[in-house]
């Protein structure tokens, strides 16, 4: 079981209650596909992903980015059992989407950088550590149903 301090819980709830999901979601997914271009392999049917500009402007990708980011709310609302909360999503990513779980960490890193850019000085080392701990628990849960 993952142990969370009171401060860590407050930090996570604080970040996710203030996020603009419709901006940060698309930005994070786009950034992942730009910084780590091999992740584009999972988005063959999404249309024009030719360069950074078209990736950032792609509406299908943008909508999907919001969906993915809202998916993190499952963990935010179930911090004491993130492992089991993601059983179905993990199966989906493994059995249906066939996503290499190594890529989950890349998206998590991009989200971290974007949150840092928005929070700036408020994104202290302690806040970063809490967010990264949270995201690594989510990544681990999503990677569990791969057999």
């Amino acid at each position: 079981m993952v142990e969370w301090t009171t401060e860590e819980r407050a930090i996570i709830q604080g970040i996710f209650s203030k996020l603009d999901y419709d901006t940060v979601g698309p930005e994070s997914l786009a950034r992942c596909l730009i910084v780590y271009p091999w992740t584009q392999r999972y988005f063959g049917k999404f249309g024009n992903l030719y360069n950074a500009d078209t990736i950032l402007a792609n509406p299908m990708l943008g909508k999907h980015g919001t969906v993915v980011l809202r998916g993190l709310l499952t963990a935010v609302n179930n911090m004491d059992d993130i492992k089991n909360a993601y059983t179905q999503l993990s199966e989906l990513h493994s059995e249906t989407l066939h996503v290499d779980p190594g890529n989950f960490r890349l998206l998590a890193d991009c989200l971290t950088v974007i949150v840092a850019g928005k929070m700036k000085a408020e994104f202290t080392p302690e806040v970063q550590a809490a967010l990264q701990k949270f995201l690594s628990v989510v990544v681990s849960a999503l990677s569990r149903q791969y057999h």
Partner: protein
Amino acid sequence: MLSNYEKELLVKIWDKMTPVAEDIGSEALLRMFTTFPKTKTYFAHLDISPRSEHLRSHGKKIVLAIAEGARNINNLATTLAPLSRFHAYQLRIHPTNFKLLNHCMLVTLACHMGDEFCPVAHAAMDKFLSAFSAVLSEKYR
């Protein structure tokens, strides 16, 4: 692979960071020690508490070396040869740790640059820091 545009962008960014090398470097290190505590094992001989003199001077050394690398990006192996030997034969830092500091450097840049740390800058920086780390660890074996 870095395009000419990316190389120029990197020089511009590191030129801006050079005057505040102590702030940027110490912040990146502090983020790394806080998020990845095992990295502290390499610094048992220093005082790495926030705002300590050791942390600031060590952070400054790192940022100035990276900035020098950005200015000599077509000659990384030659420029970094002494540092490369130092890391291989004396420091012997486990190579996975380079990624951790690189990531914290990206986060530090994002905090300081905000929107200016756009996806293209982020991609160029990540590629550059990975190449930099590869040179630092190339003499390991």
